[in-house]
């Protein structure tokens, strides 16, 4: 089933906990500002998907609720009565109970406090992560994912390399690191430790005329197992889509860089971004072996 196209600005919401998302809904409902229906629907979809994957009972049982409504409220004795107090009843009620009136007055402040806390938490997350990656926009550093796909938001245009000095494609390279160096790429993105027994199959370099991107890849094999290391130097917008299954995506920090680890049926992929480089390792090996390969990238 094709999924509804969402505003990419909302993908970061996938990274918030369900409690944080509910808090955002609460804050939005009491803010008094014009409602952002797309945002609300996106949050509800995220919560719904999580509930489907791991039911917590958070969502109401509609059948049960309807049965209770019919049993306790939709009864002959209730004919002509309202479930909610009318304005007149509300006035009488409030006049009679000054204490409750005080509580009602306090609620806006409580909601304001929640708003400030939520805003402060979000601002802290943004401010503490954006500068570390040197990106001009928060959406350039955040991976976007759904239950079935992963990708990066727009990568910054590469401004560090002079294309006139670059070698043409089709050249033979001794290693992936060698290919990257010949293209003037100095960032640490290649694993220094490949598990025993894996043999390098080829060094594959492809320059794409349309986007200006360059893709470097090094597949290794050992029997039915494989490791594919890929580096894409972006010259503009990134458009890679990684397949993933419904297993929870994991975050792995190494070298002060966030790596996104996710499964795609029988293989697991780690994807991360460094400046204008989009990097990934896909393998049939277990996650701990993948993490060892990631760690080796940043070893001195």
């Amino acid at each position, binding site marked *: 089933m094709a999924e509804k196209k969402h505003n990419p600005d909302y993908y970061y919401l996938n990274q918030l906990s369900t409690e944080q998302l509910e808090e955002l809904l609460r804050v939005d409902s009491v803010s008094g500002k014009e409602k952002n229906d797309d945002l609300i629907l996106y949050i509800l979809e995220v919560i719904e998907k999580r509930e489907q994957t791991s039911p917590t009972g958070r969502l109401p049982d509609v059948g049960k609720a309807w049965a209770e409504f019919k049993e306790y409220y939709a009864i002959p004795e209730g004919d002509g009565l309202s479930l*909610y107090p009318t304005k007149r009843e509300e006035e009488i009620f409030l006049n009679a109970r000054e204490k409750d009136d005080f509580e009602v007055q306090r609620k806006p402040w409580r909601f304001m406090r929640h708003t400030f806390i939520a805003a402060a938490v979000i601002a802290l997350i943004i401010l503490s992560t954006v500068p570390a990656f040197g990106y001009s926009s928060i959406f350039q550093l955040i991976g976007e994912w759904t239950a079935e796909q992963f990708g990066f938001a727009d990568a910054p245009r590469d401004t560090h390399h002079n294309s006139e000095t670059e070698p043409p494609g089709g050249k033979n390279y001794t290693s992936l690191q060698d290919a990257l160096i010949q293209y003037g790429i100095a960032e640490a993105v290649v694993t220094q430790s490949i598990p025993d027994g894996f043999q390098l199959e080829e060094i594959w370099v492809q320059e794409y005329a349309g*986007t200006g991107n360059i893709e470097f890849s090094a597949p290794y094999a050992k029997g039915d197992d494989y490791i594919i290391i890929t580096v894409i130097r972006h010259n503009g917008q990134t458009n*890679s*889509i990684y397949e*993933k299954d419904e297993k929870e995506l994991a975050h792995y920090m190494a070298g002060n860089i966030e790596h996104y680890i996710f499964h795609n049926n029988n293989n697991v992929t780690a994807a991360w971004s460094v400046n204008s480089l989009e990097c990934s390792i896909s393998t049939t090996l277990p996650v701990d072996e993948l993490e060892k390969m990631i760690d080796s990238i940043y070893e001195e």
Partner: protein
Amino acid sequence: MKKKSFLAIVLVIICSFSMVLPAFATSYVPFASDQISSYSISATAASGGKIAIDFSVTGAGKMSVIGAKSIAIYEKIGSRWEFAKSFSQGDSGMTKANAYIYGNTIYYNGVSGREYRVDVTVFAQDSTGASDSRSKSFAVTAI
């Protein structure tokens, strides 16, 4: 009152999801793939009326065939899209055999100022013959 009505709307939406989504769940097919690990497709206007179609597919292991299955280009004539040209997997530069990854740029010679729709399908087929594919469409005005 505004708050109550909004909360009512939210509850109705939640209830609606609760009732509707289980029905979808039975037919919901995740995009995880046994043959494709990742892919990218793009179509951009190059100089001289050319349209550059970039594609790349990384297999979930070594694939017997991997690359672009088809590229179909339609030109906008009035309010209709009319077929202009197609490339199939047997054409040069579209696929590679016994590979983990393949990608290329395929050009179409258009006419500056005209609008084209480009439909691209990439695929990967493993040694058992099982294959999987992904498609994207683009609207490009030649320059």
